[in-house]
């Protein structure tokens, strides 16, 4: 199934895509068919920079176990660092 549900958020940071490093400004998160991962459905994350065109994209296709573990790991890594250290408003 395609859920059609797309979580979309503005983000600030950089990623390394097919043409090297670029700023990423938008992320979309959704469950859909995988293009490459050998599973019928995956949790997909696209990090994008629409100003640079549709090919400015870093794509992930993860199993739900992987995606949830990744989310936990992000929380753990940030939780172990002083609050605000990586904030957009860091001093």
């Amino acid at each position, binding site marked *: *199934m*395609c*859920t*059609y*549900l*797309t*979580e*979309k958020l503005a983000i600030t940071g950089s990623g390394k895509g097919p043409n090297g490093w670029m700023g990423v400004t*938008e992320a*979309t998160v*959704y469950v*859909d*068919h*995988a*293009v490459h991962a*050998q*599973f*019928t459905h995956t949790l997909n994350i*696209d990090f*994008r920079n*629409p100003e640079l*065109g*549709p*090919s400015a*994209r870093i*794509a992930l296709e993860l199993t739900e176990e992987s995606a949830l573990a990744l989310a936990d790991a992000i929380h753990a890594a940030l939780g172990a660092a002083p609050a605000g250290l990586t904030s957009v408003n860091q001093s």
Partner: protein
Amino acid sequence: MSDALRAETVTITGHNGDEIEAYLARPLDTAPFGSVVVIHHMPGYDEATKEMVRKFAANGYAALCPNLYSRVAPGASPDDAAAAARAQGGVADDQVVGDVDGAATYLRALEGANGKIGVIGHCSGGRQTFLSAVTLQIDAAVDCYGAAVVYGTPKDFPITMPALIDKAPNLSCPVLGLFGKEDKFPTPEEVTVLDEELTKLGKEHEFHSYDGAGHSFFSVDRPSYRVEAAVDGWQKIFAFYGKHLAG
């Protein structure tokens, strides 16, 4: 009839007069021939969809798949284009209908065309096939596990796909529906509701639901591929088009 065909990317006039990319395949020595508009699935105008276009040509039909993401991501790879389209909230129904209409017009004008038009789509393309069949004058529609036809998408979804079942009285052609009993989108219950509604309206249709098959059972490049359902489904598609697009 031999299996000789010609396949190529062409430019067609779509919704609002926009020039869009499309993939065309046509038989070289079969005339007159019926034609099929192939609506690609949400993951885009990809290799597997183009293979279906060629399969129709190898079986004596002209087939044309408009790239529904031409406007949002011209020249991008299919997966990047699909991601860009998704991020913009998908493609509006009016635009899809306009592009399918443009594809049908292009096919009718091909030398050797008999003027009859079929439409086929899978997944979101299945819904868009039903949408085309209740909006345009076509001759035969094949809906492969089209979702959101009966109930639409929930209100809190960023992509709005309204239900289409209320438009069923406008259906312009016979419908072949191919579904998997293990699919959740559409569920077997939704398939039954649609089947009963078309029966009630006296609309010619035949629905088949396959055991052991879920969503995307036609996708040869996905783990969801189910050979028995797909082989039987293709036979039913060609029998259906043979009946309604011939002559």
